[in-house]
């Protein structure tokens, strides 16, 4: 083994440090009381007129008859509404600054199988995209690696913090698995700058090779766990297999990107056969396999909704109606933009589903509490309940409506200034003589 033990030790120390990080120690700010607001808790019916108290970064009290502590900074919010911060379940925020400037993009490592790559360590806390995104009420995002077949480990971050450690809510939430598609036909090959034909047979062969490789990796991991347990001292670590341990143990899901029915079905067969947890990401045709998804209890990260139908003969509104179909089938889903600079438009992806039949309440849940449940952090974020992190936005209207504005914003109890690169440029040039 050529990988050095020192490196492993460092990696283990870092990951140990992360997983045991204490959230409560993160913020010790002022006490806030948001009063006379409508409070849309997502944990029961909205409180029409009530107060939210924020202390030590967390929600200390919420309700219609809450007494305001004497040391609290009071925010008068009559006519405003408090919502939980929204969660975008797929972005590359912090990993991508400017899409076409390669030096600013850290999403895609070389190689096909990179389960050991960790997004969290490459999150750039000073990215201009962070304030821009959170100013529309999005307080947490999944940021994830891209490319290859196993891209690496996605991270759940809050959109505020001095360092990536402070931003991390859950440093590794799953391993991104771009399911090899059976898509065949003409494609443009950038290596040769020519159109190439990919036959069905070739697509299938390539897919099967990749699946075999992952099967082997998972088998190796199972053997590796035994070997590791058996030989404690002179054991040679393997970073790739280490990364897959929580997957084979069922502690960490594979975040499987697949759009087409046959790819989704095949992915479900594969993960069932391997007895690993799966979250479906994308899922354009998830509605065609909704009952299977329900049966296997596989949640779906749906989106981008604002996209064209896959096929010419699909109804023009196909992407807008998928969410309702999943709801009717009892499949749990959350929304994702798959974007970075435009992630602030997350609520409008959900809104389009409401326009085409999804109940508004469900759309809001799929932006807040459902993703929190899917990512295993429902005890921390996703609703306004005592003890949860104070990730809140105070709106002057319906957050799904474009014309509504965020009036106050809190992340981990910190009052976030409503400023970004965009507001600053606006102020500067508005005042150009």
């Amino acid at each position: 083994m050529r990988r050095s033990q020192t490196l492993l030790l460092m990696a283990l120390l870092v990951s140990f440090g992360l997983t045991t990080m204490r959230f409560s120690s993160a913020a010790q700010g002022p006490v806030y009381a948001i009063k006379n607001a409508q409070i849309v808790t997502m944990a029961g019916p909205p409180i029409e007129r009530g107060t939210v108290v924020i202390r030590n970064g967390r929600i200390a009290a919420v309700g219609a008859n809450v007494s305001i502590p004497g040391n609290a900074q009071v925010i008068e919010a009559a006519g405003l509404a408090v919502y939980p911060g929204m969660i975008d379940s797929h972005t590359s925020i912090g990993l991508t600054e400017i899409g076409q400037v390669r030096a600013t993009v850290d999403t895609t490592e070389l190689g096909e199988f990179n389960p050991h790559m960790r997004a969290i360590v490459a999150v750039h806390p000073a990215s201009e995209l962070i304030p821009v995104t959170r100013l529309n009420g999005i307080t947490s995002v999944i940021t994830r690696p891209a490319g290859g077949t196993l891209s690496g480990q996605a991270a759940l971050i809050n959109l505020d913090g001095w360092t990536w450690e402070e931003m991390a809510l859950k440093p590794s939430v799953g391993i991104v698995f771009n399911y090899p598609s059976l898509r065949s036909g003409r494609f443009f090959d950038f290596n040769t700058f020519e159109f190439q034909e990919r036959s069905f047979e070739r697509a299938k062969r390539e897919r099967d090779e990749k699946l075999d490789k992952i099967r082997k990796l998972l088998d190796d991991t199972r053997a590796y766990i035994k070997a590791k347990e058996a030989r404690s001292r002179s054991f040679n670590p393997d970073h790739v297999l280490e990364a897959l341990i929580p997957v084979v143990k069922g502690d960490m899901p594979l975040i499987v990107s697949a759009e087409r029915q046959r790819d989704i079905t095949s992915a479900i067969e594969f993960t069932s056969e391997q007895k690993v947890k799966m979250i479906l990401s994308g899922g354009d045709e998830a509605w065609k396999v909704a009952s299977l998804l329900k049966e296997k209890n596989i949640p779906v990260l749906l989106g981008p909704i604002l996209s064209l139908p896959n096929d010419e003969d699909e109804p023009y509104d196909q992407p807008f109606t998928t969410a309702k179909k999943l709801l009717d089938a009892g499949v749990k889903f959350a929304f994702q933009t798959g974007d970075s600079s435009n992630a602030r438009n997350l609520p409008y992806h959900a809104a389009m589903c409401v326009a085409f039949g999804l109940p508004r309440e469900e759309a809001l849940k799929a932006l807040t509490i459902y993703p929190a449940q899917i990512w295993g952090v429902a005890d921390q974020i996703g609703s306004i309940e005592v003890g949860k992190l104070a990730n809140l936005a105070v709106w002057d209207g319906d957050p799904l409506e474009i014309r509504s504005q965020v009036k106050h914003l809190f992340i981990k109890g910190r009052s976030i200034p409503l400023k970004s690169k965009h507001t600053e440029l606006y102020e500067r040039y508005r005042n150009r003589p």
Partner: protein
Amino acid sequence: MKQIHRVASVFLILVMTTLTSAQQSSSSDVVLIQNATVMTVTNGTIQNGSILIRDGKIAAVGKNLRAPAQARVIDATGKFVTPGLIDCHSHIAIDGGVNEGTLSVTSMVRIQDVLDPTDINIYRDLAGGVTTANILHGSANAIGGHNAVIKLRWGKSAKEMIFEGAPPGIKFALGENPKRSNFNPAPGTSPRFPATRMGVEFTIREALTEAREYMRQWDEYRRQIAQNPKSDVLPPKRDLKLDALAEVLRGERLVHAHCYRADEILMLIRLAEEFGFKIATFQHVLEGYKVAKEIAAHGAGASSFSDWWAFKIEAYDAIPYNGALMARKGVLVSFNSDSAELARRMNLEAAKAVKYGGLSDDEALALVTINPAKQLRIDKRVGSIEVGKDADLVIFSGHPLSVYSIVEKVFIDGQLYFDRQADIARRAELEKEKQTLKQQLKQERPGQREGRPEPDRRDVPPPPTPTPQPGGEQ
């Protein structure tokens, strides 16, 4: 076999043409839309308003219009009617040829030669309320080709989609795309001039200089012929590239210039002023807010994205306040899509100018209706609900700036081209047809597997009937 297909498709096109002209002759239909909230854009909003359509035009707008005897009445209680939305920057309906990415000056190529009336994105955008679109070449070249302004008359031929009498235009492009910053040359080819913004300015200056000389030669020739019709003086050699640029210099061809940064916007303003013409629109114009004063003084329009930014370095200072800021400083602003997908909700793009920069609802709606109509010089025909204008209208289920509103009906020239109910009603039938075709294919080619490579679209005749059909039969 291919021959037979050709014959068949020609026959079908003939049938379609007959059908559509039959539709046109019935456009003396009289339609009354009543009980709607009518957002005229230019003359305020009418509660419980009515619109009378006759001969494809808006015949009357008001509160208490009575239905003429022969009129078809559409009750729009609780609904909103707006003018058809206009997309000032689109690449739909192009059958290849978005970019003639070879020379840096390609003012000889024309979108009208590659219009594909069967592109399904025409129907999808129509279903989002777009009735007119400015179809442009890509931005690979400092000077690109001729645009085509079209109406989204789904089901008609390419020729019938052209917006009659719309002034011709041409695409210019500045910045990263014409200097090819983000593209590697294809293997075995060398980089292309220009590679800098300096080079882009020179490329345009050189072409315009050439065109000015060409124009002078033609003027001189015409002067001599006029003086002496029997003169044997030879005409200058015809140059299609310079013909178009001469039209630009004479102000007869509108320049739609793709740009991002403030410096390049100012550069083109000064260059145009030096050559004595006006830029019609700056497209994208993401840093327009930094030089709004200069754009307004020059008199150019600005057609921007609502909120895209940071996809490349020249878009890093793009802000969603751009539209509102330019509008407040006196620039004629529109929002465009540049995307078949985004074009399906131009009304919601407009709403972003209310959120970012505080435009009023009416000002916002103007960004996707009357303002782009003015920029394309077609505002006498479209862009607002006024008597005498084309009956290009959208019926929304609610306020057009609300995310919960959907497009229910779209009229172009008074004809119903999109009807959501009709669309939904046809779905089961289409699905059945698809399954039948699949079965037939399986029987014909039992050895073939699903997912075989699709044939090159260029070798097959266009589909005989567009799916789904316009709801014009109502």
